[in-house]
């Protein structure tokens, strides 16, 4: 037995519909945290059946659960406007995009469940009871079609930048493998958002005005997605779950998106925005993180409705899950 071995209960294997198999044997173990961290620093990749330290297991789990919750809530954010998408092409691409987001949530919940801390069902119930969290951007309501574009263009781009930074050097194997697919799909979403944003930029005056209003609503939440500056000794960085500091990612995002938006004839809702004459880089105003903290505690502008809608749908369909779990396969 190594230092990080977990007691294994053979009956843990749970094949209920909303759960997945739990690994019941261990592959590798480490004698101490120092030895484990050396393994990570040398580029080691951890797999779910390894006897990893509990603190690492919990940190990876919390991170993936937050990501899964956010993908799912992102799907809910977008669904309000899918039925209203203008024209057949936009409707099909909006459906495909949101299906991708739900697909990401599906994959991520399974990867998280493999860490044997919570089942998929427990994660879903915790989310819908408001006990766990999701990214700030999905606590806001989509008020218009151009808000939908802003989500695809500004929010997905911010999420993509964060995910790319995790993927680059992620020490948890299953997450890294899932991220390869997530990133490829998010790249399409962002380009789809960019194409629609440019159409609005060069469209009618009404369209341009609508897009500007949406930029006004979504710019700050998108920039805040990266979170406050990373703490010194951030364990997610130390254990190579993340590979870049929040402030670095945020700055890179600002340098890319400020010129794009200005180029589209839009203004950016930040009176303190300026180009530094010395280094030529765009600088944004100091961010007040207090509202973000409230949002992340499920106290954002649309958090209550969003969670309540999802909870109602989940509760209404309880009988379906129960019936399927208890039913036998009927031959076709």
């Amino acid at each position, binding site marked *: 037995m190594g230092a990080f071995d977990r007691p294994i209960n053979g009956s843990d294997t749970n094949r209920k519909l*909303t759960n997945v198999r739990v690994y019941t044997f261990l592959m590798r173990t480490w004698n101490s945290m120092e030895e484990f961290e050396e393994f990570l620093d040398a580029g080691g990749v951890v797999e779910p059946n390894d006897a990893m330290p509990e603190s690492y297991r919990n940190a990876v789990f919390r991170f993936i659960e937050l990501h899964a919750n956010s993908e799912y809530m992102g799907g809910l954010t977008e669904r309000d406007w899918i039925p209203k998408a203008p*024209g*057949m092409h936009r409707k099909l691409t909006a459906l495909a995009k949101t*299906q991708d987001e*739900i697909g990401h*949530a*599906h994959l991520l919940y399974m990867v998280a469940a493999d860490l044997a801390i919570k089942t998929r069902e427990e994660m879903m119930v915790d989310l819908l009871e408001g006990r766990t969290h999701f990214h700030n951007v999905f606590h806001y309501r989509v008020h218009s079609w151009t808000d939908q574009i802003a989500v695809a263009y500004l929010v997905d781009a911010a999420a993509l930048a964060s995910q790319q930074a995790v993927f680059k050097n992620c020490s948890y194997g299953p997450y890294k493998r899932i991220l390869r697919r997530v990133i490829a799909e998010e790249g399409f979403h962002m380009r789809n958002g960019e194409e629609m944003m440019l159409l609005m930029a060069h469209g009618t005056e009404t369209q341009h005005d609508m897009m500007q209003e949406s930029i006004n609503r979504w710019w700050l939440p998108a920039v805040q997605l990266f979170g406050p500056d990373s703490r010194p000794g951030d364990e997610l960085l130390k254990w190579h779950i993340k590979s870049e500091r929040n402030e670095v990612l945020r700055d890179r995002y600002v340098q890319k998106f400020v010129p794009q938006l200005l180029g589209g004839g839009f203004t950016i809702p930040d009176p303190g925005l300026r180009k530094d004459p010395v280094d030529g880089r765009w600088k944004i105003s100091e961010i007040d993180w207090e509202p973000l903290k409230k949002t992340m505690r499920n106290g954002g502008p649309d958090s209550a409705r969003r969670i309540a809608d*999802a909870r109602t749908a989940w509760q209404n369909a309880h009988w379906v899950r129960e019936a399927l779990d208890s*039913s036998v396969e009927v031959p076709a």
Partner: protein
Amino acid sequence: MVPSEEARKLVLSFADDELCVGQNHSWWIAIGPFLEEDLAFTSIAQDELGHARALYSLLTDDIDHLAYGRNHSEYRSAHIAEFLCHDWSSALVRHVLHDMAEQIRWSALTNSSWTALGETAQRALAEENFHIQHGLSLLRRLLSSDEGQKRLEPIVLSLAPYGREYFADCDEGLIDDGLLTISMADQERMWVDQVLETFDDFNISVDMGEETQSSGRSGIRSDDFATLHDEMTAVIQIDPNAQW
């Protein structure tokens, strides 16, 4: 080139049915009973909308105008396709009844003398087999439970008769022209037999009624259509001449 007015009406009816069902299925994204079901329903929604697009493209170069720009009375959709079905049980039952009908309707077109229509039917039929497999396996498993039987039986009894309208198009001349290889009456008989047999397995006796209950093919819309149409055209209406 559309061969005849009857052919145009047949294709338009089918396209409008697919448009409405695809639109209605898309309502379920992210709020299905579990994530796998969200994904399946959304895939099927995309397929149905794709079928609508393929069918409209046989009639016009301006698909969006035909799909979204007509007066309500110019649509030919069957009422069962228009029903919003905002409870999941109804959505599932409609999905099964619709796809059983679709499978038969496409089969009657795969060898059509209208080559483009035949090719569209062949592609669509391949997808339909998956839809039916999905809907029926789920429905059968749910009906095998007491709770499923209790919840689904009344919905089956009330929705199934409306499905007859899928076959309410006039096929005069279409069989002789080789555009359609199974008459509408025969298609309807095949569908009714299949529906009755499916539910008979679960001791549900469906009464299909003497006559078709609705009149969507003749331009009369169901109560739900206005909501559905307002929803699908909400953004276009802001500026119908703009590119979105």
